């Protein structure tokens, strides 16, 4: 049976601490380069700050973690890639980015409405000796290729191997939890299999408070958000909500 991995992120619980971004970067050997800026850095998991645009005591702020939405329906980045470096995995629904196949044309980046894809403008580098702190499950990328969230694939590998060692076909869901989910202090990020009706997030994703960003594009993202606050839910679609202070990240 094929899974459809996805997330439901409770924005009312997100305190914007950034632990998910750190855990993601550490798990996936994302370098932190002195030259990199908010426009050229690598943040497969990126928490963005939004507000209701008002000032003083009327002001409200919230934080939105942005990662690859793993679109299910005519996935924008997949059909544009000229050499099959991107694909939606049949078995997991994960949108896979293959840096070693990528030629760095960046067409997929222009195709992604969520800006969830990042280009390696520089070769990765770490202070001397720090390569010993890199995660062996993930190969560092090289300059000139695109990368993004692969839903912590190294952890899926580990889970598969563990299952195989025990002679099992299916992995134990408890063995496959992405780094950002594991790191979230408030449990705001829930991860699971949307295709499994018994999975809590399959139900969560149907709650009236749940929404997806730019759902009208019809790409069926598998990352859901939820909030009890109307102004936050209004962020789902462009210029439908209150005036939101622009945050270029």
């Amino acid at each position: 049976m094929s899974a459809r991995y996805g997330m439901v992120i409770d924005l009312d619980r997100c305190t914007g601490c950034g632990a998910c971004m750190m855990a993601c970067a550490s798990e996936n050997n994302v370098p932190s380069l002195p030259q990199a800026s908010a426009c050229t850095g690598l943040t497969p998991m990126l928490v963005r700050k939004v507000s209701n645009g008002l000032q003083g005591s009327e002001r409200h702020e919230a934080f939105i973690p942005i990662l690859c939405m793993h679109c299910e329906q005519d996935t924008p980045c997949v059909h544009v890639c000229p050499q099959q470096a991107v694909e939606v995995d049949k078995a997991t629904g994960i949108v896979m980015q293959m840096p070693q196949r990528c030629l760095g044309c960046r067409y997929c980046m222009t195709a992604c409405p969520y800006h969830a894809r990042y280009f390696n403008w520089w070769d990765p580098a770490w202070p001397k000796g720090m390569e010993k702190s890199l995660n062996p499950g993930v190969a560092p990328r090289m300059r000139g290729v695109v990368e993004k969230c692969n839903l912590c694939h190294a952890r899926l590998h580990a889970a598969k191997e563990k299952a195989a060692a025990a002679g099992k076909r299916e992995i134990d869901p408890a063995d496959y939890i992405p780094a950002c989910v594991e790191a979230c202090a408030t449990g705001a990020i829930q991860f699971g299999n949307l295709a499994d009706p018994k999975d809590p997030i399959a139900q969560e994703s149907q709650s009236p408070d749940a929404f997806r960003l730019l759902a009208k594009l019809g790409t069926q993202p598998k990352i859901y958000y939820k909030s009890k606050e109307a102004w936050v839910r209004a962020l789902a679609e462009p210029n439908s909500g209150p005036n939101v202070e622009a945050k270029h990240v």
Partner: protein
Amino acid sequence: MSRNSIVFGFGLAVALFAGWVLFPRALYVNQHQPVEFRHKVHAEKSGITDCAQCHVFRDDGEFAGLPSNDFCAGCHSDRIGTSPAEAKLVDSYIKPGRETPWQVYSRQPANVWFSHSIHVRRAGLTCNQCHGNYGESDQVRLYQVNRISGYSRDVWGHSMSRLGRAPGDGMKMSDCEDCHHRRGIEVGCLGCHQ
């Protein structure tokens, strides 16, 4: 036959010779293994019949690959034979406590994720389906490394044309794919890459 065609043919011949004979020699560097290990001798003398006796799986299913020195030290903590190879193993590696710098013929690059557990324990592949019957070989062969890519010769395979290769000769991505297609097993890029 016109002079032209002779000259042309000559050029052709030179190119073919250079391409098929000289080029492969230039492309690969030959390296000797640190110790002249002999599978056959170990099979015969110590009655080791199963590869997994030395190339073990860890409890978590991770494949250990080549045995570490303390494993070899199980028998070779001190010389038990007369061969110079053993002498070298004991004196320059086991006694000083240095790991033997074996060259791994089937070493895949860092971006490849291969699980022996899945292929051996679950799919029930035998070792020689991928590694050939190397276990019966009488001596270690030269390790050939590609000057440009740094890959082991075994990845491309020994036939330069990649035609008529024996099983286990060649471990390119296409070889994995062929086997998977034959068995009708679909895996995405990140099924085998990391």
